[in-house]
């Protein structure tokens, strides 16, 4: 739109607007380039370090910023064979998959009920769901320590499966309410006339139509579980039950010698699943991110 106006104007005014627009564009690229350097420096530096041996890292004469002269895969090898990293990876996967499934089973029918069916108090409850989403995990971990303890699940990753829904359920319900409410009323009335019951309505009409919302909610739940740090730090004390975030930071960093090459390798591998998901489903990811404030 603006390009078109600029073009017609440039015909009239002899190119001064086009030139100023070109300069604006170049400035934008330069500034964005600087911001991109700021945002991408840590992952880039981690990648550079991950390919170096400990000797090369501690050699202060070579630039730490340049890729290795003799790239090595020994870091991955040590990480895989001599540490508990594979166990953390497996535990993280189990916990995340369980919690994402539980979250969807709880959040989708609840959002359907609060957004479309309505019952006494459903409006207040929808607001309550949003408010509980704003309660941070750092406010809850101490009382939850007692709650998890009373279930006998301290120091077990099943305890994490119990408490992680506090991170995911409120937000997923909230954005699903928004998606369900945006579906036209005529659709469920037509289904009712055809004799569908509420479960059929949910599965045959609402879930297929609100599928983008469902994907966005799933991605959110996955990312939140994978990245959670406070709960595993508080509730898990043995390596065999630990998950990736807390495991990488407690055992690898607190070892006798800092092996930064290995630590950076672990960091990159652990950050991979959310990044891969994001690379393929970026639009859903961004839709979910912005939906929290715009829907409902």
């Amino acid at each position, binding site marked *: 739109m603006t390009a078109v106006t600029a073009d017609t104007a440039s015909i009239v005014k002899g190119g001064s607007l086009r030139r100023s627009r070109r300069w604006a564009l170049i400035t*934008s690229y330069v*500034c*964005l380039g600087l*911001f*991109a350097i*700021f945002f991408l420096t*840590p*992952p880039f*530096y981690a990648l550079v370090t991950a390919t170096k041996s400990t000797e090369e*890292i*501690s050699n*202060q004469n070579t630039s*730490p*910023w340049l890729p290795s002269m003799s790239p090595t895969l020994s870091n991955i090898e040590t990480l895989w064979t001599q540490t508990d990293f594979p166990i953390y990876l497996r535990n993280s996967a189990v916990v995340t998959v369980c919690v994402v499934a539980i979250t969807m089973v*709880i959040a989708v*029918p609840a959002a*359907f*009920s609060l957004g479309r069916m*309505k*019952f*006494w108090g*459903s409006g207040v409850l929808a*607001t309550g769901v949003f*408010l*509980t989403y*704003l309660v*941070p*995990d*750092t*406010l*809850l*971990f*101490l*009382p939850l320590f*007692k*709650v998890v303890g009373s279930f006998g699940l301290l120091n077990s990753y099943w305890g994490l499966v119990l408490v992680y829904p506090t991170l995911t*359920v*409120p937000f997923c319900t909230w954005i699903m309410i928004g998606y369900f409410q945006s579906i036209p009323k005529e659709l469920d009335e037509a289904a009712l006339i055809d004799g569908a019951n509420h479960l059929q309505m949910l599965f045959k009409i609402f879930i297929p139509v609100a599928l983008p919302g469902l994907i966005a909610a799933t991605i959110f739940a996955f*990312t939140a579980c994978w*990245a959670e*740090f*406070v709960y595993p*730090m508080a509730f898990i004390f043995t390596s065999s039950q630990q998950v*990736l*975030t*807390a495991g*990488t930071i407690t055992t690898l960093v607190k070892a006798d010698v800092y092996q*930064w090459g290995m630590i*950076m390798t672990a*960091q990159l591998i*652990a*950050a991979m699943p959310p*990044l891969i998901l994001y690379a393929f489903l*970026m639009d859903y*990811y*961004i839709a979910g991110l*912005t939906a*929290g*404030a*715009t829907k409902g």
Partner: protein
Amino acid sequence: MSDTIPRTAASGNTAAAIARPGSLYRMSRQRSTIAFLFALPLLVVIGGLIVYPGVYAMYLSTLNTRMNRFIGLGNYTFLFSRDTFWMVVEQSCLFAITAVIFKALIGIVTAHLVNNLPSKGQRKWRGMLLIPWVMPLSLSTLGWRWLLDPTYSAFNWLFAQVGGPQIGWLSDPMWARFSAILVNVWFGAPFFLIMYLAALKSVPGELYEAASIDGATAWQKLIHVTLPMMRNIISITVLFSLIVTFANYDIVNVLTAGGPRNMTHVFATWAFQLGIASGDIPLGASVSLFMFPILGVCAFFILRGVRQRGREI
């Protein structure tokens, strides 16, 4: 015309139900029972894992260390008498407010810059700039800790090449505070970028055209068109980020673990230190409850903003 028919049918429902408690009445009763059953698991999760622990935290904060005696406000009076507590209050506020201001500024600038680009390239840039927000925060902070390492800091190496000063990023109290804020800005600014970019796209193009016809400069368009149209989303994002930043645990714990001399502790890390590491759960709970007032105030205004926005759309 066609959409008025179902609506009259719906209002007929209630009239018929009152007049003759027959099948329709039963259906609406059944409907709200089913609706309640659908929402029941949600109620259990929210009640059992969020509301109950919240109330339980308040009860815990009135107990002594061994949790067998009620001491009223004893934990709070103890906290008020400690210098560390006031340092934590100061650092938490400094950390949250400074970081949110910079995140919002960087977010607004980058959102405008991305919006300036031809629409083909926008997706690519947006995708690249959001990477810090996608990486798990505790792990990317670990990357920062390596960048700021006392002996091998890559920034200090660069400074050494040009004869600049060697900075104790994590050992000097002031620089350690700066580093914690820097990491937070790095992590949070992309979230602002995405929110503002979405808001920028929702401003109707006619408004800018009208402003151009009236002879407005780019700066005037920003002040008189863009910012007023985005006011609501800006305040929601800022308040939301204030809550998240205020309650942050990952950055300070991984970067400095509260040191040097407790100078970088925020509420969350100090509560963890007292409650889990030192085993004084009631005292830790008292500290974490200090996050509650700011949370309440922010939540109130966010809710108001979200409702307003719902009406606008």
